[in-house]
């Protein structure tokens, strides 16, 4: 018997595999018993109702996808009334993903979702900060630190900060989130991208730009997960292009404690079930007693001192 359980800031997960926010919902329970997952992570909500972006909201690029959903939300009241009770039927921890365009709105929502049934709060700091220049909080260390500090005051629940790949300062932002009070880092959200239909000359997304997710994102997210694990002492949850148990191993070895699976579920809705089973089998075959024995075991020996320098010089 291998041990798949991991610990994220005092929260025990039966296995390190959970869905990524926005790529999971109650609907998936029609396909398999979602009690098998390490955690349930809900779609990001905002305080008030939001419609989201114009369609088309999705398009395909070479072996991956772009989306510009734009966080449609039924608001916090609906979330507390319908979503939280649904997941109460499960023992699996519930992680509520939230977002706000100002620090105050963000903190208020954080307080509002601090309710029984919610076990941790994932704060999507990859959303725009309209009090500054509209760039996402997590693009800069300073705005990351500022918003995290206020969120920290708003809840006693574990706070997971979800970072963006749209930055040149991953390590600095990770440290800022930790200093601001994050208990864990989710690395990462989608990468800003674009596609144009050359026949019609129209952007393939109604919103012009959107976020890249899927296999193309994996090497970038893996690099970020590694950087974050080196830069901080809090657990890192890897996310980006994970589709197989090999991908999970790659993130764990790089330093992640758990992973989130997003786009892969759209291609194979039972991907997470398969990954968990494969992971268990792999550990058995390789006689690894606990999945925790893999975390951060990358053989980076001589190179790691030079990481900062290398960051800039591929």
């Amino acid at each position, binding site marked *: 018997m291998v041990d798949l359980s991991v610990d994220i800031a005092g929260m025990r997960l039966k296995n390190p595999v959970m869905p990524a926010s926005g790529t999971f919902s109650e*609907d998936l329970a029609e396909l398999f018993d979602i009690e098998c997952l390490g955690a349930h992570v809900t779609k990001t909500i905002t305080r008030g109702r939001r419609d989201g972006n114009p369609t088309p909201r*999705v398009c395909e690029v070479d072996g991956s996808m772009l989306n510009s959903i734009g966080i449609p939300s039924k608001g916090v009241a609906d979330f507390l009334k*319908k979503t939280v009770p649904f997941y109460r039927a499960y023992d699996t921890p519930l992680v509520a993903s939230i977002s706000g365009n100002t620090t105050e709105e963000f903190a208020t929502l954080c307080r509002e979702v601090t309710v029984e049934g919610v076990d941790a709060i994932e704060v999507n700091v990859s959303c725009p900060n309209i009090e500054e220049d509209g760039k996402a909080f997590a693009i800069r260390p300073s705005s990351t630190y500022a918003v995290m500090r206020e969120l920290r005051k708003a809840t006693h629940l574990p706070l997971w900060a979800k970072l963006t790949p749209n930055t040149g300062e991953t390590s600095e932002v990770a440290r800022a989130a930790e200093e601001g009070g994050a208990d864990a880092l989710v690395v990462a959200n989608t990468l800003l991208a674009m596609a144009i239909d050359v026949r019609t000359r129209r952007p393939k997304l109604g919103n012009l730009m959107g976020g890249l997710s899927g296999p193309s994102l994996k090497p970038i997210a893996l690099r970020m997960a590694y950087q974050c694990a080196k830069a901080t002492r809090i657990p890192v949850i890897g996310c980006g292009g994970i589709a197989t148990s090999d991908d999970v191993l790659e993130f764990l070895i790089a330093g992640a404690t758990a992973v989130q699976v997003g*786009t892969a579920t*759209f291609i*194979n809705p039972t991907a997470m079930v398969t990954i968990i089973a494969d992971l268990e089998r792999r550990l058995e075959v390789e006689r690894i007693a606990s999945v925790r024995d893999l975390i951060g075991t990358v053989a980076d020996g001589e190179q790691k001192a030079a990481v900062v320098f290398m960051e800039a010089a591929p």
Partner: protein
Amino acid sequence: MGTLTSLSTVRAKARPPSVFERDLSVVFNEPVNGEYVRLALAAPSHLLERCRAGQFFHLLCPASGEDKPYLRRPMSIYGFFPKQGELHFLYKVTGAGTRALSKLCTGDSLNVLGPLGVGFRIEDDWRNLVLVARGVGLATLAPLALEARNRGRHLTAICSARSHDVLMSLDYFAEMGAEIITVTDADGTSEMGNVEKIIKRLVAGRGVDAFYTCGSNRMLTLLQALGQRYHIPGETALEQQMACGLGMCHCCVRPFRKAGALVQLRVCREGPVFDLQEAMPW
């Protein structure tokens, strides 16, 4: 959405799965005419028994040559035959996914996800049904003929196409005992004025209890007008780009008129079949 709220009390995991992800084997995959291909898959009866006209499957099209489709492709159920153990699709080759699909050979396997979405409603007191279909809309509406026959309703199928060569599914409708009216651009019979006349004749004749349509904006607008004038309810199937097909990603929304306001509904979950009057022409 009814099923969703009930889930909060009845634990979902206690229930058997209502949506399947399966590798099915190709029985045949044959061109119907220059543009369309009919695909038959061998499917287990417990899957086929869950199918309803208007629902769809999300197909994992294989890579083929230069074509490497990544996302699944939504495709309406064209026919479901629990006795023969077959699931049919009718598709138009338009891009990477359908091109790859068209390369499948008998015996190849195809991963499908479904049945998905909400199918056509046939209320108990809807005796005389009229469907108006054009182009690939036929694929979506065809199994309605099957359900109408199974439930003993009278169905009139108004089939529109560019020319008689590309008119499809006439045999299918005939077999299901539907009354068929064909109109074509070549004959000049497909223009809206003429279709309107035909429908008015049906309304005046044996009467019409419900309209069904799919695939044409002009048809939708015409039926909405006639529906309002004669107080005839109806339904339409709609399309939208999809990622998950299951209701999770909110990619596939369209706007609908509901109680005076515009609401965004998911084509994959609240649809693909919607109330005729609530739908918005695009």
